[in-house]
């Protein structure tokens, strides 16, 4: 059970017998009344989005899911293939379900695959992944601390903003929750 003060983006909850992921949540307080939390929830299978408002102190059940550690293997025709390294069981999840999470999947990445009624419906990524830059404008020499940024394409095809001193071929640490560059990884 999650109480309103534990609500946050990414929370997986059960509503009317269906699994939802919280994609937005905001504290709202009327001038002269109880506090509420306004949420936007996305059905984890159909993708349908609903808005719900909860009074402070109300609770939501956690989504009824089972979780298995698996490794990402490869992508083919928009299907992403994962393997359970203990049982060698393989499952696929379509890009439609993974959405922006597909941006951070690299070969052999350990993820948690979430199952409902034995069907894989989503993955939980590690908070940070390391990915290689395959394309970006040349580095500006010596500039190690400014806030200015440029675009870089990563090995997964994702495009992110990076500092000017980054060069093609470098490995970067990315925060998968925000999709933002964190730091350069020394080899």
């Amino acid at each position: 059970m999650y109480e309103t003060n534990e609500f946050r983006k990414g929370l997986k909850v059960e509503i009317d017998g269906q699994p939802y992921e919280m994609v937005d949540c905001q504290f709202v307080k009327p001038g002269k009344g109880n506090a509420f939390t306004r949420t936007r929830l996305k059905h984890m299978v159909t993708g349908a989005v609903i808005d719900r408002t909860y009074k402070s102190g109300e609770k939501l059940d956690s989504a009824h899911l089972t979780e298995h550690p698996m490794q990402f293997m490869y992508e083919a025709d928009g299907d992403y293939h994962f393997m359970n390294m203990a049982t060698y069981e393989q499952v696929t999840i379509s890009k439609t379900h993974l959405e922006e999470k597909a941006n951070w999947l690299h070969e052999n990445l350990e993820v948690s695959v979430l199952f409902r009624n034995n069907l894989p419906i989503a993955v939980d990524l590690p908070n940070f992944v390391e990915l290689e830059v395959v394309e970006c404008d040349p580095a500006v020499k010596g500039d190690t601390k400014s806030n200015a940024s440029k675009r870089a394409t990563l090995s997964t095809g994702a495009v992110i903003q990076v500092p000017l001193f980054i060069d093609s071929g470098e490995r970067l640490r990315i925060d998968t929750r925000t999709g933002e560059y964190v730091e350069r990884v020394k080899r």
Partner: protein
Amino acid sequence: MRGAQAYPPFRGPRVPVAAAARAGGPVAGRIRSDASGTWLSDASGEVRLSAVEPEDAADGDWLSGRLVPDGAAHRLVAAVVHAPRLAESPDPGLLGRLPALGRRAEIVLAARRFFHELGFLDVETPSRVPCPGLEPHLAAFPAGAGQWLITSPELHLKRLLAAGAERVVEFARAFRDDERGPWHRPEFLLVEWYRAFAELDEIMTDCEGLVRACAAAAGTARVRGTCDLAAPFERTTVRDALAGATGLDLAVLQDRDALARAVARRGHAAAADDRWDDLFFRVWIAEVEQDLGRTRPVFVADYPASQAALARTRRESWGEVAERFELYVAGVEIANAFHELNDPVEQRRRHEADRAARAAAGAPVYPLDERFLAALVAGMPPASGIALGLDRLAALLVGAESLDAIHPFEFR
């Protein structure tokens, strides 16, 4: 010279650096680049640089050395270069927020000037008090020895009215526990003002003037892309706003069960222990509030009497309303005004009811503010007053989507 501009642009007029430094004396400062060129910024002012030695000194570096005249500019010959390691700073995002902090400062200054020009008495009342406000949904921070931090300066400002001040304003930091979100910080700046002998209309006029003065200081006339601050502010009532957005008429929903059925029909979950106000807010928050003031700011007046707090109430043909309004700008509530209750008997009754509600909810029950009540007995003139969240207004005016974006530090 590396060219990336890490530092926010200069604000205000440039002041030349001291003559001694320009004449070749020792100088220490930071190199900053912007569209107008490269500058050295020291304790006394700024000087344009034609070149820097060594060449690999970067924007943001600190140096000490000498200035060598070079045409209209100066060449900086640095003996010591220090490159600050911003990535290791405990406040890595702070530098990027400096421009927003500067704009907030301009807005606050414009607001102070606005009240000064209207002849308001600008005061500071105590922040640490034995009797914080009793409103059941506000939580005060304990401040030791039976004292609390104020949730608003309301009670002290009304004592000023009773003592004879007729136009009084305070820029106060208010403290409210358990309030955290993009538009809530547990401590925030509000501007609260009162006019003796005034109706709510006069406070609305103040609001329009204040918002426009602040907008001019921020150099904008539009908020969130859609809300035009130059247009006359709209006026509506809670009953009309609710009917407009949902078709529900408060006149026939005065009964809790009737409202509960209407809320359920509109697809909102409700709890068995929801009071009438909770049910009302479930619809209001989900379907009405976010659209208020979308194209221009709107005053929403005549709240249900159960939400009167310290406002007078009035009987309309269809029900009782509180003489209160809130101001919404682009879906964000920024102010709450009362036609002030000044009847000491009714005020004491409401305070006792609030204390009972706090006790029933398991919240701390603060003592009655007998000095405030004595001021009403002595005679607080009829008055209207308002608290406006200056931090919220400033955030909207600078295009920020959170209060944190216009403050240097997070609240921990």
